[in-house]
């Protein structure tokens, strides 16, 4: 049976499955790879349609060599998910070209299964999983049509049968998925394809340039507080700290160490929370200002309190952290740090420096000076806008004395320069601020539009003090966050979850669902399995207990499966007879002779016979047949099929009709 030739129809079926399975890879593979596969499918189908032979072996070899060379030129390796998937896909296409027998198609089905898996390895979407299960279903139905002898079952039968097997496999799948031991660490380091670009905040800031982040609705991270959430004035999520200004751009400088930050003395309550980071391909993690503990092993605080990982964040992680929103410094500023954070570019922004000198003369006290600068932002007509005019040349001068329009970056940059010009150490902190509570999931969503920049100034005796100059011009900015300020319907979020616009509400519900999917399904791991064992009240949960549980559960499910599969062998004619009888009763009821609850078949037939002599004979016969089929020993005179047919034919006319 393995050497049977394949028909054009079978080829079409498998081609469709192959292309559909590649459909899930469209975003991750270069487009020419699916294109090659589609072309292979079309060539093969064309050859089969026209009844011409196969491509000559030499041509196939040349094609295969070309394709592999192309792949190598593009990827430089066949290790790694994308390159491996691309290779597999192209191989499937080439295999299709040389497909003669069913055995070739068997190999293609295996490739389809593996391609589907590879699309899922780094995926997180429920819909993708559902789609690929659909593809697998279709492939299996195609396989059934292929393996089955002539006449092969039609599509409906095949799909129904494949679906039945799929459904019967679900309980076993669930048991495996829940109980199969997960690795704590991968067997080998997964090569990072870095096919996703960096996103979110960067570690440079150029106030004169256009800012795209503020308009992006994309989620940066989500946060769930263990207890009370801190007030919005204290919900600053710390990212990279920028020290160096060249007159136009702020940069972070290079950290050579993760030696840790100078100690801080907590002044207020500690907040415990979980940050659920979306991958952004940077090394830093966003923690509530100021972080004191975190659950990530390969990460540490920089000297300016940014939590930095050793690796780039390429997959979503959860970080459990503890922070104090009010602290004071435990140690004085070092000379190096003081020099670094008071440096200003020479001969740039002269008017700003002059303004700073004038104001400093009036306010020798550091805090008073800070306040006077903030007052200037409040009193003078400074505007907050997401679409400020571009700044050229002396960007700070131009902003302070010219446009007076900008968003957080402009204010933070100008403020830092004004501080430094007065000899007060100052730096720019970037991160996120505020966030939106999702009432359906009890967590906060921080979007890219919540990105923010603020300042820290060093005040002797207090240490680094957070100053948010943007809040000086628009107090509502800090209270409500950027997204609400920018949006036209400002009242939307402030009215609270009850008054949410239905669309926003639906979005939040969807986000809560997505979060549940992530938490329960995507992030299911060893710890979750341990929790599961604890829920089942298994003492001292460990890997061994898990395996035992898996074996037990598997045995039970397999018993069920065996029973389920064999049960279908037993003729269920009694049930079928009952179903036909119900139909008969329904027909009689429609004719005005409903069966009473207490009536058996014979009694019912008698009553019908009395009331409708014209139906007497047929109804009596049918009811007797039903009794025989239902209650007598098998091998009665009337078969089920005959009974069913008779019921189908039976059409009582309503009385008088």
């Amino acid at each position, binding site marked *: 049976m*393995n050497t049977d030739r394949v028909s054009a129809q079978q080829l079409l079926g498998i081609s469709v499955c192959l292309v559909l399975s590649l459909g899930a890879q469209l975003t991750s593979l270069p487009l020419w790879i699916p294109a090659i596969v589609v072309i292979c499918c079309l060539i093969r189908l064309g050859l089969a349609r026209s009844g011409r032979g196969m491509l000559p072996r030499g041509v196939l070899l040349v094609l295969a060599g070309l394709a592999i060379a192309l792949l190598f030129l593009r990827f430089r390796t066949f290790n790694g998910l994308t390159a491996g998937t691309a290779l597999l896909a192209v191989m499937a296409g080439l295999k299709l070209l040389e497909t003669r027998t069913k055995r070739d198609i068997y190999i293609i089905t295996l490739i389809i299964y*593996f391609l589907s*898996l590879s699309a899922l390895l*780094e995926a997180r979407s429920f819909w993708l999983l559902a789609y690929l299960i659909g593809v697998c279903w279709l492939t299996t139905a195609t396989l*059934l049509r292929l*393996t089955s002898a002539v006449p092969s079952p039609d599509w409906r039968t095949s799909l129904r049968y494949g679906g039945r097997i799929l459904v019967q496999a679900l309980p076993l799948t669930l048991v495996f998925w829940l109980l199969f031991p997960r690795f704590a660490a991968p*067997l080998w380091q997964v090569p990072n394809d870095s096919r996703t670009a960096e996103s979110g905040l960067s570690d440079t800031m150029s106030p004169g340039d256009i800012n795209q982040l503020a308009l992006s609705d994309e989620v940066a991270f989500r946060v769930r507080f263990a207890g009370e959430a801190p007030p919005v004035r204290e919900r600053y999520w710390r990212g990279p700290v920028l020290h160096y200004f060249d007159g136009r751009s702020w940069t972070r400088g290079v950290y050579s160490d993760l030696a840790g930050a100078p100690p801080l003395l907590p002044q207020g309550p500690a907040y415990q929370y979980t940050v659920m980071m979306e991958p952004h391909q940077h090394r830093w993690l966003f923690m509530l200002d100021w972080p004191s503990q975190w659950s990530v092993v390969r990460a540490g605080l920089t000297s300016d309190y940014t939590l930095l990982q050793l690796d780039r964040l390429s997959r979503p992680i959860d970080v459990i952290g503890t922070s104090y929103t009010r602290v004071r410094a435990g140690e004085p500023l070092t000379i190096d740090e003081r020099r670094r954070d008071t440096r200003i570019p020479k001969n740039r922004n002269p008017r700003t420096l002059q303004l700073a000198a004038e104001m400093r003369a009036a306010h020798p006290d550091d805090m008073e000076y800070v306040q006077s600068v903030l007052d200037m932002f409040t009193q003078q007509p400074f505007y907050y806008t997401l679409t400020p005019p571009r700044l050229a040349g002396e960007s700070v001068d131009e902003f302070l004395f010219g446009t007076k329009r900008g968003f957080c970056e402009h204010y933070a940059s100008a403020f830092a320069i004004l501080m430094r010009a007065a000899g007060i150490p100052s730096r720019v902190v970037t991160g996120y601020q505020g966030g939106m509570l999702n009432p359906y999931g009890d967590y906060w969503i921080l979007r890219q539009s919540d990105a923010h920049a603020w300042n820290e100034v060093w005040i002797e005796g207090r240490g680094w003090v957070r100053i948010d100059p943007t809040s000086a011009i628009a107090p509502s900015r800090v209270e409500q966050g950027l997204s609400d300020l920018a949006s036209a319907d400002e009242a939307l979020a402030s009215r609270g979850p009850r008054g949410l616009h239905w669309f926003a509400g639906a979005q939040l519900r969807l986000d809560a669902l997505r979060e549940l999917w992530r938490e329960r399904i995507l992030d299911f791991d060893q710890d979750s399995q341990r929790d599961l064992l604890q829920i089942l009240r298994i003492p001292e949960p460990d890997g061994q207990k898990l395996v035992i549980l898996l074996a037990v559960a598997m045995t039970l499910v397999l018993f069920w499966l065996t029973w389920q599969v064999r049960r*279908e062998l037993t003729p269920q004619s009694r049930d079928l007879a009952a179903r036909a009888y119900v139909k008969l009763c329904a027909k009689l009821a429609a004719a005005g002779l409903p069966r009473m609850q207490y009536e058996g078949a014979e009694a019912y037939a008698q009553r019908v016979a009395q009331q409708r002599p014209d139906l007497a004979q047929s109804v009596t016969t049918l009811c007797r047949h039903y009794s025989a089929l239902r209650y007598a020993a098998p091998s009665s005179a009337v078969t089920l099929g005959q009974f069913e047919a008779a019921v189908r034919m039976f059409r009582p006319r309503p009385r008088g009709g």
Partner: protein
Amino acid sequence: MGTLRQAAINRLRARATRLHGRDVLPASINRRRIYILPSRFGIMLAVILAAMLIAGLNYNSNLGLAFAFLMGSMALVTMHHCNRNLMRMSVDVTPEVDAFAGREAVFEFVLRNDSNLERRDIEVRCSSAIGLGSVPAMESEPIEVVVPVARRGVTRINQFELRTYYPFGWFYSWTYLQGSLVIYVAPAPAGSRTLPSAGAQGHASHSDARGDEDFSGLRAYEPGIPLKHMAWKVLARGGEAAVRSYSSLAAQPEWLEWSSLPGLDEEARLSQLCLWVLECDVAQRPYGLRIPSKEIAPSGGAAHRFACLRALAAHGQSET
């Protein structure tokens, strides 16, 4: 690898014989005697599944694992379905068939399906010959197995096999049935000698006259009967195809004798005798067979023909 596999199969077959003893046909297949193994395709699938599992674990991808587990579970479910496909079927077959050397013997296995499920793709394997068929729910279905036979003799097949790759070809389950099937392989009819009666032994009058005038009645046409015996008039009147039969020949039995063929080797003699048997049968002449191992008294008809052919097939073989 191949020989190892063959050895394992032989042991299994011997074990099946030992365990189940001879089956009384029609035999019903209970689940204890159904074996199952992954096919070559199934082994490839297992390798892919293992790769899928490792990839899913290594990437710590719960979706990938879910998919891998789903595929694995489907394979396990398929195993049950494959096993079920043979369960509680019953098999019957006419255990003795006749054939000529160099031609084919045809066994007609009747599979009966007393369940509500269609049993698709059932193979009946009988000494390297395979018949394939499907049995609809609650029905019986004949499946022909065509066994090519090369040599004259009595061939016994003590074991045959029911096998299925349904549904996806990942597994095959099979069962051995211990029935004794016999093929009587008559020698290939061949030879150039004329019938003894046509020789110079004094029966010339019969051969000249061919008994044409001794018309005794009509009988149903069978393929192989010379067309000149056809009762065309009957056919023209709209009757069934019939041939005239001649009673005169019944009176003069033809003895087909081993000893009348000197100068030929054993197989050639048997072939010649076989040809004569067929010629006499077609010509409706009573004939008897006398060979060293057996003597069959003159008679006619299908049963007699079979008896003679079987005697020729069994010649030189100890029949037990």
